[in-house]
């Protein structure tokens, strides 16, 4: 059914307590109206607007959406006709939220609720949810969706304004139970006479401001609300999938280099070294060719040292250009046994991966050193051309994992903040 072209006529009367003008927008649906001037609760069904109660609000609250505001919400015109503030006490601290009652003569009622800048669009359910226990948690199922219990509290109506389709009165109390499945929230309100279930959906304040053409901007949301959708929903899984793809790509690239790098052995020889000998310790190897593109050269040294050290000054010298690449490697190997058991440090082998060596004819200058008191040492030198360095693979893999780990950490932090306000907070929560 389409909305009428002209706004429905409202009924105008005066408050019997303060004579302020009253407007009835909800027609025959309105049972109670609260005078906007003196806050007297009046019987809307009484021809003389009998005063039911003089509402004594400690503090007058101005609704963010003024009563009588009209807007198009979810495709239909709605008018704000009532406003109430409800309060729960948790650990002696009052927490209040606002409820705006919207009315459409053809669609009925719906609510907009607001807590610290977080808005929900709420409709009363006509289906009774099923409440059950699952894995030690209370859950509720309705409309094919499962909601997890968030909190149970005693809510008190602390401020009312406008019209209501029920007999509103000061200090009205209800046991409210919230279940969440972001962005939805299932709530039950239980009084002595009835239990009402409603379904809320988290809504951006900006959408409401736009729909009702409200001036300014909506208040900024504070903290994380119980059914606020996590900005990380789906994001964590997606970034880890992307990470996996990149890691596999990285592995593939490394495998290709492992397969296609030459890893060609260009020199191998064994030597003896006696420390303290009078002859010159340094020597040069026979010349060898390094082929292919500018690439790595791996120098591997294997010794027979035990509980001792040796140091090798090395220089890879190009016979044609006179370019020398100086580097050094220490070999130290210690082992033994003590009260903790066997131990060992280091090893008798070492390798050096010389970077970016152009092709050409080379020889290696070797200058071994040892403790002069040490015995002789036998060692072997193997030189290989074009050996891949796996170090970059590991560093890149680590750098790839950091962003997804950070996003996961943030997502967990968001959920921790959400549930900190529930009955299941890590500390301070008491359940119901």
């Amino acid at each position: 059914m389409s909305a009428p072209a002209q706004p429905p006529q409202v009924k105008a009367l005066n408050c019997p307590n303060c004579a302020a003008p009253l407007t009835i927008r909800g027609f025959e649906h309105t049972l109670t109206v609260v005078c906007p001037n003196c806050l007297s609760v009046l019987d809307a069904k009484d021809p003389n607007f009998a005063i039911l109660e003089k509402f004594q609000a400690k503090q007058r609250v101005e609704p963010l959406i003024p009563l009588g505001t009209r807007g198009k919400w979810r495709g239909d015109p709605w008018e704000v006709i009532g406003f109430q503030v409800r309060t729960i006490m948790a650990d002696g601290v009052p927490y209040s939220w606002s409820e705006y009652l919207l009315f459409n003569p053809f669609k009925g009622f719906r609510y907009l609720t607001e807590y610290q800048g977080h808005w929900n669009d709420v409709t009363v359910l006509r289906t009774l949810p099923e409440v059950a226990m699952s894995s030690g948690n209370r859950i509720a199922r309705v409309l094919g969706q499962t909601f997890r219990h968030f909190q149970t509290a005693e809510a008190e109506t602390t401020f009312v304004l406008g019209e209501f389709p029920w007999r509103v009165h000061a200090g009205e109390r209800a046991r409210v139970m919230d279940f969440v499945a972001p962005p939805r929230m299932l709530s039950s309100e239980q009084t002595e006479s009835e239990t009402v279930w409603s379904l809320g959906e988290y809504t951006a304040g900006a959408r409401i401001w736009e729909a009702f053409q409200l001036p300014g901007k909506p208040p900024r949301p504070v903290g994380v609300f119980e059914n606020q959708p996590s900005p990380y929903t789906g994001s964590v899984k997606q970034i880890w999938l992307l990470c996996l793809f990149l890691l596999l790509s990285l592995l593939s690239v490394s495998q290709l280099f492992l397969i296609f790098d030459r890893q060609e052995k260009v020199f191998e020889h064994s030597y003896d070294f006696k420390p303290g000998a009078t002859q010159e310790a340094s020597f040069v190897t026979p010349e060898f060719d390094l082929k292919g593109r500018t690439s790595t050269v791996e120098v591997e040294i294997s010794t027979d040292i035990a509980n001792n050290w040796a140091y090798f000054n090395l220089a890879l010298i190009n016979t044609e250009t006179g370019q020398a690449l100086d580097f050094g490697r220490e070999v130290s190997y210690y082992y033994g046994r003590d009260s903790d058991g066997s131990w060992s440090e280091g090893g008798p082998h070492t390798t050096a991966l010389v970077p970016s060596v152009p092709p050409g004819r080379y020889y290696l200058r070797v200058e071994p050193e040892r403790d002069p008191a040490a015995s002789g040492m036998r060692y072997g030198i193997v030189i290989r051309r074009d050996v891949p360095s796996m170090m970059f693979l590991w560093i890149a893999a680590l750098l790839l994992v950091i962003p997804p780990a950070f996003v996961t950490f943030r997502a967990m932090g968001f959920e921790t903040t959400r549930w900190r306000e529930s009955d299941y907070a890590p500390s301070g929560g008491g359940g119901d």
Partner: protein
Amino acid sequence: MRHPIYLIYGLLLLGMVTLAEYRGWTFTSVNELKNVPKSVRDNPGAYRSHYMYYARHVGGK
């Protein structure tokens, strides 16, 4: 695609690894000298290493 920056970051890393592997870059510290005389081939003791090495370990546990 919800993480375009991460994808670009990952592809850049992948590119860097490929380039590093292709160019033969490593983390080994090497000192480069130019115009080493050919006489070193005959007299290795005349060559003075310019590699700055760290203090060596001289003991066990």
